[in-house]
């Protein structure tokens, strides 16, 4: 995949939507494209993370290991960003990401990602916004789960 098409794709990603084109080029250039076959793992829960991924093509499952077995918490598609929590907070990967179809992803190394966040406030704001959205989503899920646990919730 060429830089030009990567940039076009990046522009469609909400995280990078508000970033001016020259910055986008920088991000694309410092990143690398990686391909995964179906069933291969982008990152594994519990391992140290050294990169974030932007899905360029294909689909991937995000799953979390629980006592009852792995359960899928999200299905990623083109344009989704994954893996940024582990490099922002320096914690091990919080979930496992598995390619469901052949996947092509842009791999942004940890140091490059942190540099971007640090140097370009617009990137930082976007990352924050993304995390906040996810948090509110998680909060909603939590409420739903509590309701379920209390037996008040209705069927899905």
């Amino acid at each position: 995949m060429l830089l030009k098409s990567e940039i076009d794709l990046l522009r469609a990603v909400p995280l990078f939507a508000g970033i001016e084109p020259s910055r986008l080029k920088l991000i694309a250039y410092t990143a690398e494209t990686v391909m995964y076959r179906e069933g291969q793992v982008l990152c594994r829960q519990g391992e140290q993370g050294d990169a974030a991924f932007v899905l360029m093509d294909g689909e991937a499952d995000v799953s979390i290991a629980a006592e009852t077995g792995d359960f899928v918490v999200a299905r990623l598609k083109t344009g989704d960003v994954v893996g940024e929590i582990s490099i922002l907070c320096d914690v091990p990967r919080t979930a496992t990401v598995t390619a469901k179809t052949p996947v092509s992803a842009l791999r942004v190394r940890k140091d490059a990602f942190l540099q971007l966040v640090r140097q370009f406030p617009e990137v930082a704001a976007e990352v924050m916004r993304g995390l906040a959205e996810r948090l509110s989503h998680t909060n909603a899920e939590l409420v739903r789960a509590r309701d379920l646990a209390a037996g008040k919730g209705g069927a899905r």
Partner: protein
Amino acid sequence: MKPADELDESVFRYVWRFTRSQQLWLFGVLAVSLPLYYLTLDLPKRIVNGPIQGEWAAGETQTLFDFSIPLPGFLGGGEIDVFDGLELDRLGVLMALSFAFLFFVIVNGLFKFYISTYKGKLGERLLRRLRYQLVDRVLRFPSGRFKQVRGSEIASMIKDETEPVGGFGGSAFADPALLMSQALTALFFIVLQNFWLGLVAATIVLVQIVMIPRMRRRLVVLARSRQLTARILSGRIGEVVEGIASIRTNDTSNYERAELGERLGRILKIRYDFYQWKFFVNFLNNLLAQMTPFIFYLGGGYLVITGKLDIGQLVAVIAAYKDLPAPLKELIAWDQYRVDVQSKYAQIREQFVMSDLVAADTQKVSFDAPPRLEGEVLVSGLKVSDDAGNELLYPTTLRLSPGETVALVGPPGGGGEYLAEALVRLVQPAGGRVAFAGTTLDSMPDFIPGRRLGYSASGLFLPQMSVRDALTYGLKHVPMRREERSGRAEASRLEEARLSGNLDLDIRDDWIDYEAAGVTGPETLPTRLAEVLAIVELRSEIARFGLRGKLPEVLADGVSDQILSARARFRQRLIEGGDEDYFESFDRSRYSDYASVFENLVFGTADPDADADQPLADRPSVKAALVASGLDDKLFVMGRQIAETLVEIFGDLSADNPLLDDIDLMSPEDVERYRAALRRIDGEGKREDKYKDRDRRAFQRLAFGYVEPRHRLGLLDAGLKQAIVAARDHFADGLGPDLAGAVFLHDPAGVNRAASLQDNILFGRIVTRYAEAQGRINTVLAETLRETGLYEVVFDLGLSFDIGSGAKRLAASQQQKLTLARALLKRPDLLVLNRPLSALDGESQRRITAAVLKSRQDLGVERQTIVWVLSHSEHADLFDRRISFREGRMQDPESRAATPMEVS
């Protein structure tokens, strides 16, 4: 009778003791040469007074060279004529005498030549002997001594300070004898010619001989301090090198500079003082020497004018005198040399003579297999103290049964480590003893504990050698397999070793004691090495050295073929496993996407440093190929596009922005340069011709480094790729001299010596676009190695890895593993390990500890006793017995010793 290696107090006695017969031979040769020397003095006078100035009647002849031996009275007197002589006329006599003079000059010269060569050899042998003796003494220093000496000072003493002593050996006796006899001959000759002139000369000589050495005493003092300061300087420099980490981390480099500068200043002052005195003394000496000719010219001239002396005699006296100052001067110089050497020798001797030197017999060469130390080890009342007499280990008594494994635990300095050191005789006990089956350790010569005990500790020093040599070091006691050598070289090697009192064992023989390692010979040793390395978990790391390191200059027979067949097999395996997407083989007829444009152009690789020496784009054969293939412009345009993109992306980042490190194709400093070049090109190319060519090369350089999948600028189309592949032909018939050593071509049917074994087998690039490619390729490679039997070669190459000075090319943990493996390899009866793995994490330590304990079965030493000072006391459960030490005292003495647990 003094021991053979005694260092006598006087350097004269030392030289005499070891070179007596050579010195006597020298005397003999000198005695023969003296009459000849006298003749060269006498002949000029005869020539001047005879044929040149003498009164000759026409046709008068003289008899020359008649020679007869007078008979003593008891044989009836008279003489026996040996040679009747030659009847010659005036011209004939002149010719005969002149040629005789020439003859004697030549013979005299030959004698001198022989004597100086002989002296040189004698001196060199003496030097070898002295250095050997000093090295020998270092090897025999008592252990405590090493805490006080600095290695570099010792090295400076043995290497530099001995040098003049060696030179002196040749001239200690012969020089004064020769010079004295020459001076006396000259003096005697002068006296013969004229008594009074002789007397004058003798008086001045006497004054010189008495006065000059007196004035030189101060020189001796200065020379001594010069030597001491220089020695300390080398010690300090050694410390700076060793302590560079502390210097850098504390910013004390300027403190060191000042300290060393101060030292150098002191040395300069001493040296300057020394030279001042030396030249002053020389000045006086010369002045005195010149007094004599002054008297000769004045007095002798007067005598000639008044007719009391004939001119021939005066010329001869002056000629003889001309020869007098030279030997005299040399004699005085010799005396200076003597004093200097004596003082140097005395100072060296001081450092190497001590009463508690290990006896030479203890370290004597022994070809016998030492007795096994199989019985019980009894430590009774063992006490260890430091230099100041503080107790490090209070009297300790314990027994170690054969085959027992004992863990010594306790805090560092608790005492266990001193017990460990005493068990292998690294410290001299202050009391008590260690006995093996009734024989005390103290009474054993080195070859018993040295071969039957094994030891490893943290921080053992490893000199620079290969991994193989480092491992087998513990097996090299005597040459086990001696190669029969004969011929002159071998005879002279042995003869020289004998003449210098050196050990005559040959370092080139095979010293490895295979039996001790439990193998039959060199063929089976590598397996054993792999085994011990596997026990300490170092084997795969060593193999990696072999895989990633540069190929050696010389490959063993068949290895090249093995590599090539592994290359084919690797390719086949990729296809079989469906992994061919992950890899891109080099192919002459195809563009390799994961290689750079330049690598594709030459179909090879470039030395990473080559571009800095001279830009590759600027090298004649590259230029020629570019022009010939029409790529010159295309690559220029491509480079320009790269530059435009990179300048656009990175151009507005500040110079210290870490993201700039990601540019990869150009360095951050280059961004501005390329921006300027772009501007020049966008303007008019014609104006600034001097930049034109340079800019062109710079843009081409960018294009050379371009790898499409990595940089993703979409600059390579099929046509361009094809053109680049076609241009390969320009380099196919060998490289021009401008690329030799900078570029290495791929050869599908050969091995690239500049590349690692791994690259040679892969012969292509990993398609890094696939995340799993790297891991998968490694697996396939490992399988290929095993299958093709190349793993042995890889391991062998790894064993040849140079560990670097002080093993600095190995991590601390690798060094510790290596010394532990070395101790295991010799399969000792008692293995003493003193926190041998402290650089490793606890989990690895435990794993390796267990493996070492278990390895006794595999190595065939079930009855090996192991004493292990542990860093982690919780690992003691792996052992039969645990003894803890605290503050130098054993905590649970012998309580459980009565019932040692069975070895499971």
